[in-house]
């Protein structure tokens, strides 16, 4: 489904961040990406989502065999790519319900469908709130404004549940979540999983991966995937840290 081929990208000033990334994600799979701070995990997710701040200098990103590089961020979203942001932004004065309604209807419009009927929309929102054990009052709050760290992350997953993407990239969605919230968010992600969907989880902690069990774990270091393995790799990283991988790669 998603194929990242020798992807190189960096800042407009020429600073290179991603230095040749290769990653194949097939339908039904869960991939975890781990790696030290500043190794390029968020940059990778931003580039896949089409953030124009980053310049792609080489390689390609394909979805179902077609390059995404010429697509706008919203077109990529319409094709089913969802990014749960590491740092969700605040939009003052825009309620969660109004935001998700606008987002959902934008997706529908892209499919040539009219806006979702208010009653159906409300029903759907209620369902997803329930799934994520969130209170209704949440809908009328101004988007991310004054949200706690954990609330922001739950809100991302709520939006994911509403939009039902084919490929969800979760950038440190577990950071800032308490133990219960972690379980609940994982439930939400698992509810989305199907043989036709895929999930890429970026995380620093093995704990999330106990709930969302990955098929593959990759280690990103200095803009490259330097090691891939199964979920056991995550356990090993938890135990040993990154030093040994850094050493392994020091010579290369």
């Amino acid at each position, binding site marked *: 489904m998603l194929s990242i081929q020798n992807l190189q990208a960096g800042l407009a000033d020429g600073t290179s961040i991603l230095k040749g990334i290769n990653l194949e994600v097939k339908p039904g799979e869960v991939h975890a990406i781990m790696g030290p701070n500043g190794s390029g995990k968020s940059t990778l997710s931003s580039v896949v989502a089409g953030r124009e701040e980053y310049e792609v200098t080489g390689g390609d990103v394909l979805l179902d065999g077609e390059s995404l590089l010429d697509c706008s*961020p919203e077109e990529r979203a319409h094709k089913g790519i*969802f990014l749960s942001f590491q740092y969700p932004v605040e939009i*003052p*004065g*825009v309620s969660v319900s109004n935001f998700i309604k606008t987002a959902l209807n934008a997706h529908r419009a892209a499919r040539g469908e009219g806006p979702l009927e208010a009653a159906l929309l409300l029903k759907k929102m209620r369902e997803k709130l329930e799934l994520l054990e969130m209170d209704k009052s949440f809908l009328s709050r101004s988007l991310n404004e004054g949200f706690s760290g954990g609330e922001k992350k739950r809100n991302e997953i709520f939006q994911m549940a509403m939009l039902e993407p084919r490929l969800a990239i979760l950038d440190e969605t577990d950071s800032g979540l308490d133990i219960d919230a972690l379980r609940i968010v994982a439930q939400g992600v698992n509810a989305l999983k199907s043989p036709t969907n895929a999930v890429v989880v970026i995380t620093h902690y093995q704990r999330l991966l106990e709930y969302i069990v990955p098929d593959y774990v990759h280690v990103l270091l200095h803009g490259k995937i330097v090691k891939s393995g199964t979920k056991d790799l995550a356990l090993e990283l938890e135990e040993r840290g990154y030093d040994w991988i850094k050493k392994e790669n020091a010579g290369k």
Partner: protein
Amino acid sequence: MSQDEILEGVTSAEYKYGFTTDFESDNLPPGLDEDVIRALSAKKNEPEWLTDWRLEAFRIWQSMEEPEWANVRYTKPDYQAISYYSAPVKKQVNSLDEVDPELLKTFEKLGISLDEQKRLSGVAMDVVVDSVSVATTFKATLAEKGIIFCSISDAVHEHPELVRKYLGTVVPRTDNFFAALNSAVFTDGSFCYIPKGVRCPMELSTYFRINQAGTGQFERTLLIADQGSYVSYLEGCTAPSRDENQLHAAVVELVALDDAEIKYSTVQNWYPGDAEGKGGVFNFVTKRGICEKRAKISWTQVETGSAVTWKYPSCILKGDDSVGEFYSVAVTNHYQQADTGTKMIHLGKRTKSTIISKGICAGHSNGSYRGLVKMGPRAEGARNFSQCDSLLMGDGCGSHTFPYIEIQNKSAQVEHEATTSKIGEDQIFYCNQRGMDTEAAIALIVNGYCKDVLKQLPMEFAVEAQKLLAISLEGSVG
């Protein structure tokens, strides 16, 4: 594409309502002197007291200088090149069939056909096209409650005692250059009187529209809410595009007697000039209300139009415990200039005022907020809260805040907050990632930013205002 390019793309909305209507007019030749004023007054069949009142205003005007202190630049109009009277020829109408078909077409283009308006939501309209009201609806329903809602010309003949008692009492002829000019030459506008204790059952609405090339617009609105009454009044306007600048110098006077409440909402969408800043309406308006005891006046405005705007809806809080509110969204784009704000003059004890001003600047425009809060010596325990925010879109525009505070009573409290922000690339990308294109993203962010003002507007008007914000900032919406 950089954010600036995106913004430039989406802020280059062409004015949607740029068209003119041809219908015969009965005009006075351009120029202004005492004879013109006498002729105008005679054409309108006015009583002598009003003719004299106008002539006095004209003399005052001649002794005044056009103000230069506002933070706007423009070529001063040539007041001798303006025609001060133009009326659509067929004036008397009993039904829509009798209205000039060209005029009806104009309304249709604007999406405000009277038929539709009649059907919708019980909004009574007094439509001003050029200078004379040509159609008034819902009069009967209003009459049952004793509410008077008519053109000011009709009021002069039918309710002279009210007009004479209140005209010029809130905005005196000596107030300022444009108010003096308006007093001399005003041709039409609305008059409204709500009797004691009556709650006006519907929103009263006027759609203004400038139509005659080279015709200055000098509306005069006088609204009196008698003791314990309530009225919500809507004013909205659009104008055809035009190459030469058009002058608009209206005066609005509100009188809220003891325990009365007036909500005055404006959605203003005059032609702002093209993307190079050519053409566009000059809007120099004097709007002021006076509150007697426990009375309340709320001004809510959404300003998206005009090449140059100079406008300060104000409240004189004369009665003890009276309340003044000002909620404003002012959008400037391209080369538009706006200098707007409010004055809250606290005279009575425990008077309260709230000012929420939201400026949005895009393109090469310039937006200024100018607010005066004055606490008089008698204003014990008076309070004001002001919040003035500016939102900048791109790097070519400017926003300025000029708060003036005068306190003559130590027990009075004044609180002022101000912020300036930019629409962040982060916010736009976040919305894009959720499937919205950049235009939709900006509309959403801007509407969120303006929420505290928009929620003050009556429902249908709020929807219209949101659309206007979208149109004036976005290009392809609608």
